[in-house]
């Protein structure tokens, strides 16, 4: 559709949750857009229920062999190769395989530093925008991307301008068990808001409850991925080209410090420069900072847009722990999407408990059969033989999980950087993750785990156990690594998502977030993208890019 030498209005790097929304909005607003996506352009017909292809061969995600990641706990350690980061690597990005939990942030998430004050060891800050600024865009996500849920079912929900466009998905056994037990304890469980269609909508089918959801692409387009929802709308404008198998590895900048386009490898590893009047990075909270660091020049020796030194820093992957239980009768929770009920009673916990933060619990079952056999049984179950088989047979249909999600404090040393030694299959420096949870977050998770175990007691679970609460060495929520802020010394982008340093370079994805929220970031990432598209459109119309 476009040639790399055509100077389009915008080149967007990444076609996931935020890139897809930006592509749709900007092309609808009349701009010429090229989206460069590292991964392949797969479609519903390419999606499979083969767990080996999905989890073993990374059909939809970054491949640890071709794209090694290195991990170290502290800056004093030497990082070693480890699959420490997972993200979607196909058109639609991580929204193709995600669980599809769509929680809004609450008012507190934007202002909690002001309310709580400094916390030792944390680089805590408030957002330069508020919940009220984002509310119209949350609503837009719900109606345009497609979210099922029930407004006002949770007394802790922030204000909203419109109800959900669709009723919640049908309740699952885990949801009933959780709802009854949590109410017995005085809590307020509610139907999970999910980016999965409960009714046919916009030419897409409703969920048929196949049970291959988390990790898998939806073969009927009921999961509201960017691929199923906004990317077709972008393409329909006739002004947006999605170019797959295009691995961007440098943002080209001219002598005046303006971005001129994105340099990428095509599938044959030929190198091209896609020219554009402005560049938007929506490559996720790991690859966006990596790309800025890879784009260092004499003019920008520490990486592009990094005068603050904040590029890649303050990663907040959301603290989490899973608690499991087995019940007397079959739940058959392998049927359907993963999550059925959520509880936000612990969204803002009292600091008298000895830690800052909060979170949510959800009732779910996210195991597919192989994953269940490897990970779903009580830890003391024999690994093979008659007892192993009996446990599989009894528990596969009778198990459920309570997933505890919560805040992560931003810690400056928790960061993505370029590995000095390890290269990817294209010869580029590998992504290096340095990460160690703030002790506060582990304390909070231990507290949440205990509440989840109490709920299972109240529910009459026959067996219950918690996965260990351990320092995280594998992250999927890639948040905060190019944070938004008013002070150019303490943030990477301004409230228009424009980098403080390069006038025609914008960033919009999980990296933009200033705090972590309570565990489900994609809704916020997309609301930010809708808002960013409005801001960028206004700037372009005023010739201020």
């Amino acid at each position, binding site marked *: 559709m476009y040639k790399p030498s055509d100077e389009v209005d915008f080149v967007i790097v990444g076609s996931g949750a935020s890139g897809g929304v930006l592509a749709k909005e900007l092309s609808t607003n009349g701009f010429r857009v090229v989206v460069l996506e590292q991964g*392949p352009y797969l479609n519903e017909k390419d999606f*499979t*229920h*083969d*767990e*080996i*292809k999905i*989890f*073993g*061969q*990374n059909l939809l995600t970054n*491949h*640890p*062999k*071709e*794209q090694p990641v290195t991990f170290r706990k502290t800056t004093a350690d030497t990082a070693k190769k480890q*699959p420490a980061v*997972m993200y979607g690597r196909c058109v639609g990005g991580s929204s193709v395989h995600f669980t599809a939990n769509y929680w809004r942030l609450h008012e507190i998430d934007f202002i909690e530093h002001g309310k709580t004050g400094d916390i030792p060891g944390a680089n805590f800050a408030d957002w330069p925008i508020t919940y009220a600024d984002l509310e119209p865009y949350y609503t837009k996500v719900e109606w345009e991307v497609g979210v099922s849920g029930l407004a006002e*079912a949770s007394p802790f929900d922030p204000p909203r301008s419109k109800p959900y466009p669709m009723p*919640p998905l*049908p*309740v*699952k*056994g885990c*949801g*009933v068990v959780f709802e009854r037990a949590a*109410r017995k304890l005085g809590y*307020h469980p509610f*139907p999970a808001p999910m980016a999965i269609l409960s009714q046919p909508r916009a030419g897409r089918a409703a969920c*048929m*409850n*196949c*049970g*291959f959801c988390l990790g898998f692409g939806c073969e009927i387009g009921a999961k509201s991925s960017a691929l199923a929802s906004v990317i077709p709308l972008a393409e329909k404008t006739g002004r947006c080209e999605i170019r797959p198998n295009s691995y961007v590895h440098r943002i080209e900048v001219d002598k005046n410090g303006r971005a001129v386009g994105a340099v990428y490898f095509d*599938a044959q*590893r030929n190198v091209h420069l896609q020219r554009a009047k402005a560049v938007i990075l929506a490559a996720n909270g790991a690859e966006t900072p990596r790309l800025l660091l890879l784009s260092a020049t004499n003019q920008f020796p520490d990486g592009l847009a990094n005068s603050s030194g904040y590029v890649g820093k303050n990663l907040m992957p959301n603290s989490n722990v899973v608690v499991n239980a087995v*019940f007397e*009768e*079959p*739940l058959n929770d392998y*049927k*359907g999407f993963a999550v059925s009920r959520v509880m936000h009673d612990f969204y803002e916990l009292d600091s008298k408990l000895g830690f800052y933060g909060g979170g949510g619990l959800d009732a779910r079952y996210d195991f597919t*059969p*192989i994953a*269940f*056999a*490897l*990970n779903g049984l009580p830890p003391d179950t024999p*690994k*093979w*033989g008659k007892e192993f*088989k009996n446990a599989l047979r009894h528990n*596969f*249909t009778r198990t459920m999980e309570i997933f505890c999600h919560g805040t992560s404090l931003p810690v400056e040393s928790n960061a993505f950087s370029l590995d000095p030694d390890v290269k*990817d*299959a*294209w*010869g*580029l420096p590998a992504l290096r993750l340095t990460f160690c949870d703030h002790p506060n977050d582990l304390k909070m998770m231990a507290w949440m785990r205990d509440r989840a175990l109490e709920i299972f007691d109240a529910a009459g679970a026959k067996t219950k156990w918690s996965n260990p609460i351990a320092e995280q060495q594998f992250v*999927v929520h890639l948040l905060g690594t190019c944070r938004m802020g008013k002070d150019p010394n303490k943030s990477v982008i301004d409230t228009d998502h424009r980098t403080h340093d390069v006038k025609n370079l914008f960033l919009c994805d999980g990296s933009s977030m200033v705090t972590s929220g309570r565990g489900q970031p994609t809704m916020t990432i997309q609301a930010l993208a809708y808002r960013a598209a409005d801001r960028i459109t206004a700037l372009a119309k005023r010739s201020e890019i």
Partner: protein
Amino acid sequence: MLSGYVGAGWLAANWPAMVSAAEHAHQAAKSSNPALEVLTSEQARELDALTSCLIPTDDMPGAHEAGVVYFIDRALKTYSSESLPTYQKGLEAVQKYTAENFPGVARFSEASEEQKLKILTDLSAESDLQKGVPRRGLPAGSTDFLRTLRFDTICGFLVDPEGGGNRNFAGWKAIGRDEAHNFVPPFGHYDKDYLGWQPATPEAEKK
């Protein structure tokens, strides 16, 4: 900067293998006794005996009925070819242990059930079999035979049959997973008498 460039991209590198595996699976689905392509018939017989100890047959199908050995053969032919030496060495070690501890028993597959359990219990104590696996994603390739075998046996038993195992949904039957891919609620015991969402009542609030 491009010196690290070797061969084609990962998709190009992996897709032919995936397509090939799918085709093999398709062939295998057509025939209940597909030809072995990598394993010798002797190796296949020993693996059948071993995998049948890991997931035995009772009133429900086990690894044998699911065609796990044929799944492993195809895996070794396609995406898991680097595991072949692990299998070869592992089978030799099992044979050696059997011969040393049960003179007169020619091979593992000819041992009594009791002897088989003893052999596997002893060998698994020295293996990485008890080590955990990551919650997300499947574990990276191991060179430990029993860990590899357990992993491949579980995969061959429970993978969607389009992945080349779980013949006639044998594994799903054994764990109680309906073979369908679309379901209508109620799904199980606890949701069948659910009356629909009701806001919490003030009485309940007081408790």
